[in-house]
């Protein structure tokens, strides 16, 4: 069965031929056991280098499974993922970083040691580690807290520590799994601004998984809409925002049109996911 194709647009013109930074073809994920589950796919996906791509879909549609497979944390049951020309199969390739919804800061380390943790294990010399950590601490607004432990920080600040820990490794492809899911709306908007700044400065390709349609609409160049489980891409939408943008975009009339379009694509799938598609669909 062919996967639903979501082709790269991003910084290039939509539909323009461009070498994929990340390509997925016919990717599925099944889980065995007493009750076998077909969790994902088939999925086809092309991401252009430097693109900000968001994935939205109903609860339980396999968004996080998709992230695991693309990051190399979990091998696909079928199909293949190719990152920078090399296949990804259950091993995290160099150049990919991920930030998760749950707090993944190490509570026994200070903010500074948390951020330097991965870097210290890559053979980078001490001066370079110091330089990159100083930059990340400043960039993420953690200067006054570098000696603090995660327990002394708010949820948003702990998430910034996790982003900084990924940032210092200078990934070329960053996967974000609902990183602001546990934060309040105002903080999410501001964290979104920081994420856009990070994206512009690093030039990394970003794939953001979110359940918040406004977040997807505000941050991304392109949004892929997934079906109820097993998750497949049913459509994709190009937002058309300029690269220089921030959370003030939510006041634009076009922003409302993008979120409305996303919801119209997602509504039936969300109803299916909660088991009331027949009763409530128009």
């Amino acid at each position: 069965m062919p996967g639903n194709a979501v082709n790269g647009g991003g910084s290039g013109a939509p539909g323009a031929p461009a070498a994929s930074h990340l390509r997925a073809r016919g990717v599925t994920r099944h889980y065995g056991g007493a009750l076998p589950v077909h969790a994902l796919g088939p999925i086809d996906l092309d991401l252009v280098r430097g693109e900000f791509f968001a994935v939205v879909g109903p609860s339980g549609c396999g968004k996080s499974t998709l992230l695991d497979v693309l990051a190399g944390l979990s091998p696909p049951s079928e199909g293949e993922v190719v990152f920078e020309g090399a296949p990804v199969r259950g091993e995290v390739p160099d150049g990919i970083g991920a930030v998760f919804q749950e707090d993944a800061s190490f509570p026994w380390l200070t903010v500074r040691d948390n951020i330097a943790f991965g870097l210290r294990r890559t053979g980078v010399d001490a001066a370079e580690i110091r330089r990159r950590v100083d930059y990340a601490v400043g960039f993420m607004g953690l200067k006054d807290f570098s000696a603090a432990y995660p327990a002394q920080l708010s949820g948003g600040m702990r998430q910034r520590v996790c982003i900084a820990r990924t940032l210092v490794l200078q990934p070329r492809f960053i996967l974000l799994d609902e990183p602001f899911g546990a934060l309040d709306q105002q903080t999410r908007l501001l964290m979104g601004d920081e994420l856009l700044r990070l994206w512009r400065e690093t030039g990394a390709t970003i794939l953001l998984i979110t359940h918040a349609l406004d977040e997807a609409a505000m941050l991304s160049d392109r949004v892929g809409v997934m079906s109820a489980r097993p998750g497949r891409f049913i459509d994709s939408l190009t937002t058309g925002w300029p690269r220089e943008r921030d959370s003030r975009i939510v006041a634009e009339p076009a922003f409302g049109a993008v979120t409305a379009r996303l919801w119209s694509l997602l509504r039936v799938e969300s109803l299916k996911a909660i088991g009331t598609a027949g009763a409530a669909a128009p």
Partner: protein
Amino acid sequence: MSRTAAVAWTRAAVIVGAVVLVELLCHSGVIDPLTLIPPSEMALALADLVASGRIADDIVQTFSTVATAFALSVAAGFLAGALLHALPRVRRAVDPLLASYYAIPFFVFYPLLIALFGLNTIPLVVIGFVFATAAMVISTLNGLDRVPPVLVKAARMLHLSPARTILLVTLPAAAPYLFTGLKLALAYSFIGVIAGEFILSGGGLGFSIAFAYTNFDNRTMYALMLFVLAVATVMNMGLHVWEQRLLRRRARA
């Protein structure tokens, strides 16, 4: 005064008050000196015992036996716990045994251990080890169960090998529970060894307490009991302070 300081002062006042009360009851004759000697006399008797060097060998024997039982139980308990955590099917089979482990009166096997190993410190090490190991196994399982999976995922994203993930992420994340295991293993090793010495042994603090008891030597008996109590309290408090320091860093604000 902070709330913590107030609690500490209240606790100290309760202990001092109880000791003073026992002292007064002993001196007033309400408590028969054949039953209990005044705490002040216990302390003096202990000072005499320590100064005379009479209990030096007992102290060395008991503490070296406890240390051996403790070290073995922590190592074996941790390894068994880690293994059971990695093998969920075996764990399901072993779980009921672990849950009912402390329902077994291990001391009934002590004569058998003496028959097997002779009247030396080996049966004591074995009884202390058997008594303490399950606590370490259970704490290790508890700790490993509570390591958030996202931390292990983060370790994979940071390209840590499985061995480094265990050393640098899993163990520190499980540390508070492993610490509980250490505390329990120490307490159980102590109980196992001293109780074993009580039942049948040629030396050690437990043996000396039992010997003084059978000879109506209340002064020595209570002095030794005070010594054991003081050592257990100091060790426990030391571990408690260390644990609190560890937990304070992690307590969510």
